[in-house]
């Protein structure tokens, strides 16, 4: 039915509280599955890997049927040739790193196995660890070994369930590069589950949003995440501010509109197909708002609104302010340094600068 190499998934499956119903195809590409925990992302991977048997539907890789409810076909995990890796490396603790990586090549002549294992270890820069036990190497090295172990088997699809979320940023980018190089070379479908929006943006050209067991968006990550379909998805995509606004006037020639928020705050926003009087939900990232302590002039930004700082909360790596503008409270993120040099405290009068193009709409 499907062309060689393509993963096709069309499944219904009961999860605690709701049922998952998803259908999608993955070509020889990397696709990110994005959504809150509990949305069903992991269950999708588990169905493909064979750890879970869906109630209805069909799963194929390259025309090979892995599961078909109609005919009762269910290929057991060990015959699926699907690589699976989760946040836990799950290395066998009683084997050395080298033995772990060779584990999946058991029906291969030992000379060839040796060559392959060595090549994969060199690729992942863990050749020196070959004789060590997993307990004696670092978390990053363990995850590298686990990736090498899955890849050396040359799976026909690779499923990654937040594989790098326990690692620091630097290690993460090194491993991602190794991962994508391999995918480019092997050209197999690769599904990457994450709930981290930064990852969702940067990893792939295609993103599927999973919410409550359904795929609610499919496409380019920027387009999908910048036009969130729901409040939940907007929050996940980092839109901390979701504000109801009424369209006051359309400026077709400028490509903008004027919206008012409870009559006491006006914003210039991008033009969409709505009429004056319609109510829209504006989505605005806290990090996209600039703070000034005097009224700035000579700026290209169209929205410069006065406000008063209500709360200041120091968080890991940044400071979150809530600023009351008219009767609307906006969340704003600034760096610690900015907060110090501007002496921002609760009660201080400030000006917020908001670019028109940084304002998005919640769909619907």
């Amino acid at each position: 039915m499907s062309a060689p190499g393509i993963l096709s998934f069309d499944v219904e499956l009961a999860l605690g509280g709701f049922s998952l119903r998803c259908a999608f195809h993955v070509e020889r590409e990397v696709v990110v599955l994005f959504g809150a925990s509990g949305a069903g992302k992991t269950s999708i991977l588990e169905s493909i890997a064979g750890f879970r048997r869906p109630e209805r539907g069909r799963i194929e890789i390259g025309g090979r049927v892995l599961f078909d409810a109609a005919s009762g076909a269910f290929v057991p995990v060990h015959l699926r040739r699907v690589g699976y890796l989760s946040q836990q490396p799950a290395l066998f603790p009683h084997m050395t790193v080298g033995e772990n990586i060779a584990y999946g090549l058991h029906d291969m002549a030992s000379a060839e196995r040796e060559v392959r294992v060595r090549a994969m270890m060199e690729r992942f820069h863990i050749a020196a660890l070959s004789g060590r036990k997993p307990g004696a190497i670092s978390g990053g090295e363990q995850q590298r070994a686990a990736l090498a172990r899955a890849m050396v088997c040359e799976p026909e699809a690779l499923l990654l369930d937040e594989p790098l979320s326990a690692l620091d940023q630097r290690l993460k980018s090194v491993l991602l590069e190794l991962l994508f190089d391999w995918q480019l070379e092997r050209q197999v479908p690769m599904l990457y589950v994450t709930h981290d929006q930064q990852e969702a943006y940067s990893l792939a050209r295609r993103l599927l949003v999973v919410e409550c067991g359904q795929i609610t968006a499919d496409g380019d990550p920027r387009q999908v995440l910048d036009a969130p379909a729901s409040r939940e998805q907007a929050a996940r995509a980092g839109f901390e501010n979701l504000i109801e606004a009424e369209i006051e006037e359309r400026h077709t020639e400028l490509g903008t509109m004027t919206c008012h928020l409870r009559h006491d705050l006006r914003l210039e926003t991008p033009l969409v197909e709505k009429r004056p009087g319609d109510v829209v939900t504006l989505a605005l990232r806290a990090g996209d708002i600039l703070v000034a302590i005097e009224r700035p002039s000579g700026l290209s930004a169209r929205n410069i609104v006065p406000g008063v700082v209500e709360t200041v909360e120091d968080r890991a790596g940044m400071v979150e302010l809530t600023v009351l503008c008219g009767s609307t409270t906006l969340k704003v993120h600034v760096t610690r340094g900015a907060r110090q040099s501007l002496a921002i405290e609760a009660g201080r009068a400030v000006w917020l600068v908001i670019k028109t193009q940084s304002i998005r709409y919640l769909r619907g």
Partner: protein
Amino acid sequence: MTPLLLSLKLALVTSLVLLALGLPLAWWLAFTRFRLRFLAEAIVALPIVLPPTVLGFYLLVVLGSQGWLGQAWQRMTGHTLAFSFEGLVVGSVIYSLPFAVQPFTAALGGVDRRLLEASASLGAGAWRTFLRVTLPLALPGILTGVALSFAHTLGEFGVVLMLGGNIPGKTQTASIAIFDNVQMLDYATAGRQSLTLMAISFALLVLIYGLDRGRSWRLR
């Protein structure tokens, strides 16, 4: 055969039989999704709480020359199961069953399921996963089960008495011989035998706890 040698032989045969029978049973208990599993667990644990006389009585009924198993055995071998070494083995296997199966089950069930899943997704079938992953990781617990059932069989008294009678050289184990010697007021022999039995049991328990210690040390 001296009573002590007989005891050791009985313990050895029993723990080996329990290894062969208990491992599959423990495997099933550890991994089944059968809803009445708790019932099977209760049956396996029964010998812990039953008085040996009760167990011995039922075994005598079943294994004796009037019992169905006893008659079948007699037709096959020409002698009764009760009052024979084989009968003692059957009794001991049941008597020591929980001491083997419970540690086996804990050990098999204690192996991280993610490792079993990883093994499967790397192309290993159930048997290969068992041999290469489950068994090596569960080995300390399995050895504990074997040693415990060995030690427990060594100390068995009531079931042997009910089932085996007291035939010197054939079914008279060390614990029964001690009882006999005390009855005959031969405290010197009883004392020697008791000391030997205690030393062996203690050595076994030291081995078991040492194994357990070694395992937690290795994981750290």
